[in-house]
């Protein structure tokens, strides 16, 4: 198994599989409602230097702040 990484470590164009969410409850619930739960796959479409990214998950596209991306842990998928 690969080392644990955070979504914020991904670069644009990389795929990521979520293992866990380490965020405060209300944000965690908002992510859950979008289907961003352990096991789901995320593709990073675009990323800014400050860490804000555009991701795709379950067919929808989201803008995600850097702080939120730091709390999503998992592994890069190759």
């Amino acid at each position, binding site marked *: 198994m690969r080392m644990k990484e955070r979504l914020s470590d991904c670069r644009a164009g990389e795929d990521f599989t979520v293992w866990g969410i380490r965020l*405060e409850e*209300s*944000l965690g*619930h*908002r*992510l*859950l*409602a*979008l*289907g961003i*739960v*352990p*096991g*789901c796959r995320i593709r990073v*479409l*675009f*990323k*800014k*230097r*400050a860490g*804000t990214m*555009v991701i795709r*998950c*379950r*067919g*929808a*596209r*989201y*803008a*995600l*702040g*850097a*702080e*939120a991306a730091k709390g999503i842990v998992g592994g890069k998928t190759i």
Partner: protein
Amino acid sequence: MTIVFAGNPNCGKTTLFNAYTGASLKVANWPGVTVEKKEGTYTCKGQQHTLVDLPGIYSLSSYTIEERLSRQFLLSEEADGIVDVADASCLSRSLYLTLQLIESGRPVVLALNMMDLLKKRGQRLDVERLSRLLGVPVVPVCARRREGIYALMEKTLWAIAAGQRPAAAFSRMEEKERFAWIEAVVAACLTGRRREGFTDRVDAVLLHPVWGSGIFLIIMTAVFFLTFSLGDLAKLPLEVGVDQLCTAARQGLDAIHTVPWLTSLITDGILSGVGSILTFLPNIILLFFALSLLEDSGYMARVAYIMDGIMGSLGLSGRAFLPMLLGLGCTVPAVMASRTLETRRDRLRVTLITPFMSCSARLPVYILLAGAFFGKYAPLAALSMYGVGLLTAVVVARCTKNLGGKETQAPLLLELPDYKAPAPRTVILYVWEKIRDYLTRAGTTIFLASILLWTLLHVGPGGFVVSMEDSFAAWIGKRIAPLLVPCGLGIWQIAVALIAGVAAKEVVVSSLAVLLGITNISSAAGMGALRASLGVWGFGPANAYALMVFVLLYIPCAAALATIRSETKSRLWTAGAAALQMAAAWILSALTYRLGSLFL
């Protein structure tokens, strides 16, 4: 029967609601357009039903205001049946809410919107199978083209009549299993591989880490530049029209030997005041046309991503920029849009800074003053107001960063919709709504303000006055004017115009027309007269610029204040916001006047 439309944000609930009820509620291509519950009626087979449009939600938990409101209503006794509107192009996400709605035990019908988009992507969906697996009726619709809406209503009424309470096979599943179940259902019903397309290619350019913000700046500059320059061309025929109307009215009133005071009231009061506002209609139309293209194309939501870095340094998420952007049209809906923000602290701060974004009502003031005092640099001078407004908002946001405790800001999380060609119907409705608002204001607020002002100008303590200097208006203005001397605005007429402008900011223009007795003030001749009559007091470009800054920043109009009051539910906060705005206006206009006097 009461039928509720529920679903994810930006899936087309309001479009569907409008199709049934004939309402023209605002729709656009970004999540969070609808912030209030709206009701309407629909008659089917002689029976009248109540339809309810709710703000979009992703789940029935209660972590956001919209979710709480929607949940409350959906689970109340009032809702007889639920139409769950889902965006077929991202089905697996949408079905999470669908499961929760089915579990609520009320009759649910799933309306699959945007099936055309799915087809365009080369995918096919087995509707029958989906319906069997979910245990609820599924109806494909196209809300934009109003296809399938009759079938949808029939199925819904049937489901309500059947009192059908489908057994939920998934009610004991954990969240993770639930999504696995949803993925399995979608895999069973959806065939064909998704072709990635247009939106990602456009985003590669518009969301570029380096050029992205530059492109946004260019787009906004272009919007306002076109509003000023094209609008100026389009306003010529209107000026001629207003001119002819005034001349005709004067001649007509003279011909029937109207008493002089009545002629003066009608021509110098009403026609000058209202007429001056009407000529700015082309600018207003152009501005809202451009804004509606931004909103309906899908670019609007992306601005939150582009601005996230800058907003982050102010302690706000990029999403807080959306209300500010809406504020370029009108402060009232912009303040209401602050509701979609996650924490109360963010909402309060956004209501504080949004009024600094220059709304369309301030446009006539810039066009008039810049046109009269800045010659060929007029568009530039007017454009700079948007920069001044934005900078002030940024500074105020920075200063209030630690206000209300160190509650951590909610990070950005916002769905970005697919780009689409703006729907002509949506754009036309939106612009028409704004034209109607503008004309209504000209016919009510500005009409009344002009009459009131004319009266105050011609009546003094001793009845009718010969010289305006003895009127009530002058009396009031002369009390206020000394306060405005440091801003280069110490003229009683300007003080009166500014007070009147609290009713609506366009009133500053109509009041200047009435106060200075200039008919058709926005025409070349009118601007010349304005320059000449203010020039008597040594009022030059520096003063004009200070006045523009003052109008930009000072106390928002009565309607905006009322909205801030109702959104924040705090009189104290509203009063504080108004005081802050007045202080900002006074300080910055004094500053620009001093600086301007050195150069201009």
